[in-house]
């Protein structure tokens, strides 16, 4: 019962956060110089004062700010994110078209980072003075220090040009025909480089974190007890220690989900991955504000959902929180 109540509480809080994002979007658009109509007129190459007044009335820009905010929230709640200036289609449809690609990229990178990061961290923690430990330290520092787009471009030069193993651009081979399995394999081939690039930064962060946390756990009393009971090192490390050692990684990963999405924006432009990052990049070049704000809202929604999931998985991993 208590779990359900906390869950409900968290969900309501998340909804309030989303509402705040909607209000922020609204405020930003109103502080910024010019409004939607000015932008449209700019696109059309000028208009008569009557037409401007009519457009303002059509878009409700002549009403009070409070009414406009209210209408804005009302529309957003009904899934109406406005119409893109450049594509002339509803922003929601555009985003929904591009969302699956981003979700595929981000979740793959997310799990790659957690799994590889944790494994490296565990290996390094078991032998603090070993060569592996130094490799993990150097790797984690480099991963953190290299600009993500540069890592991407370097991987492109290495694995799409010098050693042409992976395709350089897009999510699938243009005009590719085949069975479902072949199509999936084709997408997978395109996914490798972007996912590894996006994960590289976080592999660095999590391996460091997992190493520190595992060192901490491995030094604790209950681990010594388990070892002295005669359990094998492998069982103690992977069954007893890992469960506690991975907690900070899960927390951090959840907290950093927003940064992962932000990183995806850059990675998508490097690899021409057809996700919302690519969409956002094109929106900014053409000053398509409704589209850009819609993307900001949608990605915040993704972050909020990811945070909720992290919160719940944390509860499952750590029964003390109940």
């Amino acid at each position, binding site marked *: 019962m208590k779990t359900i109540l906390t869950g409900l509480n968290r969900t309501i809080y998340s909804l309030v956060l989303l509402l705040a994002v909607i209000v922020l979007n609204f405020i930003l658009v109103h502080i910024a110089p010019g409004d939607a109509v000015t932008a449209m007129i700019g696109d059309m190459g000028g208009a008569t004062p009557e037409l401007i007044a009519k457009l303002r009335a059509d878009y409700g820009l002549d009403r009070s700010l409070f009414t406009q905010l209210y209408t804005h929230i009302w529309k957003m709640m009904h899934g109406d994110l406005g119409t893109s200036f450049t594509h002339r289609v509803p922003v929601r449809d555009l985003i929904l078209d591009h969302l699956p690609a981003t979700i595929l990229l981000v979740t793959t990178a997310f799990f790659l980072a957690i799994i590889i990061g944790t494994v490296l961290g565990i290996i390094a923690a078991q032998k603090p003075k070993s060569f592996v430990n130094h490799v993990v330290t150097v790797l984690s520092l480099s991963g953190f220090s*290299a600009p993500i787009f540069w890592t991407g471009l370097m991987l*492109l030069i290495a694995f799409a040009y010098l050693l042409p193993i992976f395709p350089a651009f897009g999510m699938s081979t243009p005009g590719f025909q085949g069975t479902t399995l072949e199509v999936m394999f084709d997408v997978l081939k395109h996914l490798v480089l972007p996912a590894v690039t996006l994960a590289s930064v976080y592999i660095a962060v999590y391996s460091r974190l997992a190493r520190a946390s595992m060192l901490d756990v491995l030094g604790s009393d209950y681990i010594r007890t388990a070892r002295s009971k005669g359990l094998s090192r492998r069982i103690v490390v992977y069954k007893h220690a890992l469960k506690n050692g991975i907690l900070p990684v899960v927390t951090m990963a959840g907290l950093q989900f*927003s940064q992962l999405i932000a990183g995806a*924006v850059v990675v998508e432009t490097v690899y021409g991955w057809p996700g919302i990052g690519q969409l956002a990049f094109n929106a900014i070049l053409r000053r398509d504000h409704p589209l850009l704000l819609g993307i900001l809202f949608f990605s915040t929604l993704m972050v909020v959902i990811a945070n909720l999931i992290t919160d719940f998985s944390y509860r499952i991993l750590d029964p003390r929180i109940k």
Partner: protein
Amino acid sequence: MNNRQELNPMVRPDRPVVELWLMFFANKAAVLGLVLWLLVVFTAVFGLTIYTGDPFEMVGAPMTPPGAEFLLGTDYLGRDVLTGIIHGASITLAIGFSATICTVIIGVVIGVLAGYYGRWVDNLLMRVTEFFQVLPPMLFVMVLISLFTPSIYLIVLAIAVVSWTGMARLTRAEFLKIKELEYVTAERAMGARNASIMAKVILPNALPPLIVAVALNVGTAILFEAALSFLGLGDPNAYSWGYMIGSSREYIWDSWWTITFPGFAIFLTVLGVSLIGDGLNDALNPKLREL
């Protein structure tokens, strides 16, 4: 304190700054970081007086590979890559430092107020912090830049707006911990004002973890600026490393050097500041060194 003096006669505990430096310089990685940084600062300050030139100027044949004529080659317009890298150093440092200063100001002020006053002030400020944490940084900055005119000031401010939350949480945590300590209560009993307790009593004691965070923040700010310039959203008049990579990326198959070298410059600069941060962390929190 006396114990430590007996353990290590080199360290004079009555001079914590000396102790800090001794520990810092005993750390090889940290010294390497410092050397990298001195190199970048030197390049930024004196580079252009030694190796003169305008980075925007076309000086040679387009896409000349690195060699005797141009040490690091030229880009697709025939601009010298080395001049660009030297020029980019000062812009990178300028943006990295000013964005960090803004980040620290916002973060520390919010963290101090939340941690010191607690209750509803804390509650309110922490909700605001959480709100900024769910906004994906790059997208939020893109929105800001697209709504307002891009300039170096807007970029610095935008980086600060998306980076201050970590600093605020850290400052708050330190203040929550320190404000309960006896010397703070004593100070208060002697009638010290809130502002004076915050600034003169608690803040100096909260500095060690903050200094480390500041060092790491310089690195993140540099990476952020690089990514923005790479996407073509930076100040169009600033010849930064990110811009160099972004403008040449279409020629990646024909001139790898125009992408590899500026990226390597960013990498080394951020690596340097990360190593310094790590070294400071070890020197300031000796207990954590085993981790």
